[in-house]
């Protein structure tokens, strides 16, 4: 068996970005395994087994359970009730988590970012596929270390991050102080609070974001790349997130 750090990529129940997420993790150096949720449940991969086997967990984009009831809600219930994963504990033991788009929505529903944050339909009421500029805020998030402004695609109908109205400023202040407000749009494609594109947990090891870094690992994915054909063989800007995680995983092992 290879001695590379291993990453677990979830699939099943309507998750649909597992392949490209695994490709991005492999390009960064990980040994990435795509595993069906039902297999993890029947093999009883509890938090301890998750921690001992995998340096990183990726919850890819998709339409788990068709976004019925609310995006990511039933997936979150399935992970909590059937696998019992306590992801903050996984992170505190050194594990790294990335939730992209639907994976991020599930992380929010699982309460990883606290009880006062939620995510709902874009203000426009429409699904939107477009490229945005996002910039990391602060240096707390392990996945975003050293990353500058990036062009990434968003592809979602429910990306508007909201906060409990009656505790809004209190919650924002708390999250800000903990370094959790880690990724912001330059514009605001969905009406998110504070132009938030992503959040991390207090350890900085769990990142959830609406844009898709795995969709920009080669330059030819960029919507404007043909204007600079000289860069056609270059890597995309999203790859840096996965490379950061790989370094982090090596460091955690050392």
């Amino acid at each position, binding site marked *: 068996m290879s001695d590379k750090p291993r990453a677990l990529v979830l699939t*099943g129940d309507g998750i649909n970005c597992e392949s490209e997420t695994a490709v991005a993790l492999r390009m960064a150096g990980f040994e990435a395994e795509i595993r069906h949720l039902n*297999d993890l449940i029947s093999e009883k991969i509890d938090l301890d087994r998750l921690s001992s086997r995998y340096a990183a967990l990726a919850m890819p984009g998709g*339409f788990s359970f068709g976004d019925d009831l609310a995006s990511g*809600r039933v997936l979150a219930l399935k992970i909590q009730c059937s696998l019992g994963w306590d992801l903050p504990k996984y992170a505190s033991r050194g594990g790294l988590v990335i939730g992209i788009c639907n994976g991020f929505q599930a992380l929010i529903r699982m309460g990883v970012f606290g009880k006062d944050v939620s995510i709902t339909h874009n203000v426009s009421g429409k699904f*939107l596929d*477009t490229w945005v*500029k996002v910039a990391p805020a602060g240096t707390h998030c392990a996945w975003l270390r050293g990353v500058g402004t990036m062009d990434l695609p968003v592809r979602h109908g429910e990306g508007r991050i909201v906060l409990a109205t009656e505790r809004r400023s209190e919650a924002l202040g708390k999250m800000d102080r903990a370094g959790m407000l880690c990724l912001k749009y330059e514009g605001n494609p969905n009406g998110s609070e504070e132009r938030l594109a992503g959040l991390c947990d207090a350890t900085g090891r769990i990142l959830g974001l609406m844009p898709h870094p795995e969709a920009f690992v080669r330059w030819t*994915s960029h919507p404007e790349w043909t*204007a600079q054909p000289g860069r056609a063989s270059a890597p995309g800007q999203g790859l840096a997130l996965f490379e950061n995680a790989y370094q982090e995983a090596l460091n955690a092992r050392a």
Partner: protein
Amino acid sequence: MFARIEVAMRPDFSDPAAEAFLRKTELAHPELFAKIRWARMMEVYWLDIPVAREEAIRAIHSVFWDRVLQWLFTGNLIPSAAGKNGGIQDLFEAAPVRPGEFWALERRYRSGVTDNVGRTVIEALEIVLKQPLPEARASSGNLLLIEGAGLNEDLLAVLARDLYCNELIQTWSLVPASELKKSDRFHQERIKRDLPKVSFRGGSEVEEYDLTSLSDDELQALSKKKLWALSLEEMRAVRDHFKKRLDEGKGKPTDVELEVIAQTWSEHCKHKIFAAKVNYSERAKNTLIPRHIDGLFKSTISATTSEMAKPWLLSVFSDNAGIVAFDEEDAFCIKVETHNSPSALDPYGGALTGIVGVNRDILGCGLGARPIFNTDVFCVAPLDYSEALPERLFHPRRILDGVRLGVEHGGNKSGIPTVNGALVFDRRYLGKPLVYCGTGGFLPRVIAGRPCESKEVIPGDRVCMVGGRIGKDGIHGATFSSLALDESSPMSAVQLGDPITQKRMADFLLEARDAGFYRAITDNGAGGLSSSVGELATLSGGRGGARIDVARARTKYPGLKPYELVVSESQERMTVVVPPEKLAAFTELASRRGVEVSDIGEFTSTGLFEIEYEGRSVARLDLEFLHKGAPRLVLDAFWDGRPAVAGASMPTGRRSFLEEGSSALLALLSRPNIASKEWLIRQYDHEVQGTSVVKPLHTAFPGTPMAFSGPNDAAVLKPKPTSEAGIVVSCGINPKLSDIDPFLMAQASVDEAVRNALCVGAEFGGPDSVLALVDNFCWPDPVGDPAKTAWLVRACYGLRDACLALSVPLVSGKDSMKNDFKGKLNGNPVSISVPPTLLMTAVGRITDVRAARTADFKNTGDAIYLLGGSRLGLVGSEFQLLCAENGSVLPGTGKTSEPDWEEARRIYQWLGGTNGREQQRIRSLHDVSEGGVLCAVAEGLIARGLGAVIRVPDGMDLWEFAFGEGFHSFVLSTADADCGALEAEWIANSIPFAKIGAVMSQERLDVSFEGNTATWSLPIRQLRTAWQRGGYWE
């Protein structure tokens, strides 16, 4: 216990669903919109969960309620779940006017209609309660709250019917405010009544028919009554066949047998028109088309491909989709379907099942392929249609709205990028919208040791139905689509798809495929099990055969009759041929993946399709008769010749290009057929799977306030992380030319599809260049109409002519021949037929995606060329339609563009990399299509905000140069320094070209003519505004 749960977005947050409803109201019924002051959209759930009250409450808490976002109204179940009053009146307090006049419209699915959210609710409850709940039931709906002055029951009924509810699949009721404030609707008995159990009377009975004594009239009446869509000749053939059987003492035909025959012989499944003998004649004597045609499909479509030797063609026409080699290891496949009739009745459900249906064609192609892209083309009437609508027809806005959403859900939720498409407007699509859904797939060339294109069935193999369950939905879909749409079209012909059940099934099947668990696979589409098992049975042993017991198939609810089980088109089902020794492993994997498998029988070598119900024989059909017994249709065709020059017999004359040229350009850019489709494209995920190289739109300065997009000609995907080779997908469609000559229309559609593929960098012309076409005919019914039949003949021969000339094979196709509406308008009979429409879809390979091209001009100072361009004409152009609508004369020489395939080959072989080596110097390439050269130039400028100066070459008619459309033409740009190298190659290859201008930094388009003595100019901003305005809808 029973529960009714109402979920409301807290008033602190905007409610996009209600706002979308209001936007639609504003467009469709401005007078009602003016009365509405406030609206909120709530979700409603009806539950029957057989667990204790406390447990149920706990589950409801976690499944339904997001405390940050929502209030929950449950009667008294969860009292703390709302605002200070704990009820719906808390929501009313957020309305701007108090005390307001409140109304509510409740909507829900008719019982038995697929309710995907209801299914997810049960799964969520099972997860939370950690137990299977086979007896639990859930149904989903909405409650729309409206506050406004002067509304009444009649006005709200208009809103409900026109904008809120499709009464074919949903019901609605008006709830007055007084009722809302009470909690009666939460009472157990009331919810129980609101959540009826679906069941049907009857079950296993089988009817027998004595056809021997029936007269011709009675035979026809029976076919019509039973929706079999069989002609008199066919009914006679059936009668005679069964008379022989009766004489042999083997019994009368059963309803199951007759239904299976009707499905198998339907136009939809059998393509009788394309197989018919055609007697063709024209007014002109010097026709190139034969007098007697022995089947159009055989003579023009399959013959065209078999006349070309292409070693990379792995499977054509014989399977669900055509299969083409991609490289030594992998292959790709393509199929395009239409779902016109269902989309006319239920645009959302029709389009959704269209897209998930064609996805299944790919899953069932060869040994099974993974869908990697979708492509969609919609043809609808203009969205600003404002005249009275014939009965039972929907407004084109409503059609497009539903179709758009159906494809959004079908594509996005399945994780398949929508990479290409088109939107075509013509008034005649009011009668039937055309909804083309195409899917491409990718598969290894060798799967579990066998070639990917093989389909093998061995007697003794099991017949397994996989995926969804059977219901009444979609009974008679195949025969229904083989009839004209009329007021009595059946409701059961409509189905709703379930993308998540299908996604689970697809993931499972690809795993089972790689493990070698099955020997063959096909989808259950039109005709259901009768078609899928009936077709696979022909592969079993020498004579073929299958024996199934339909009582073993899983159903959605009890009470389905044997014939219904056989012909139902319920979605998300595949039929899989599993060797008996692999059955255990196959079903075990399925259960781990949450996918249901029904083992319903076995393949045999008896030559019979035998169907049983609980062990009792209900059908014994001779396969030979079933597949070859249909009498052949004979059609007469007569072509009267092209209409007089200028097509629509409009006046021609001189017009001043100086005075009217710029306004014509702006008007063209705003025309729905040309205008931006960005509003539509961005609601589809065109990048999932991470393969995107050339997207539907190019974008300059993405993510900034300066970000603008322009159109690309085709999509490029990079399907393998380990290879730089890519797949190109494009299309061509030009129904307006059918009004001149369908022969020309077909030639133009092929040329456009190929040109679009070349624009982005497809290979062309070499012995190993991979480029293939798919044809999709949507026709007004040609049976008994020699003119319409002649249109079909001419289109087929135009198609053949263009494909042979360019040496591009056809690999798959489909036809839909009954695109007519017969109904009433203001009590008078009215019939509307679509224009003959041929969609050509091209799929090809690009050697290295890093050499892909887009349509936008890139740099100031670059030279602009018109490549080809010697055959542009205004007759049959979008500009001609514009003149006709404005009542103005058509300028120009009155000529139609005609192809010159010799010239085309020279241009395309150079662009496709077979001749020359300077192609990498091309900076942008865009085909000249709707709107002509100036629209093509404008489209290349709109995104980046660069400008251009265009000089009309001397000797060209100004109007024809500017707005003429036609064959083999491109707008190309290159660095000024590279002009010499490119021109040398063009001259060497006899490629016509003209340098027509240059890119400049000033943000305007200057057009100069008459030896540069006259000029007009337009700011890019104005071009952009015009292009972005036309044809917009949600």
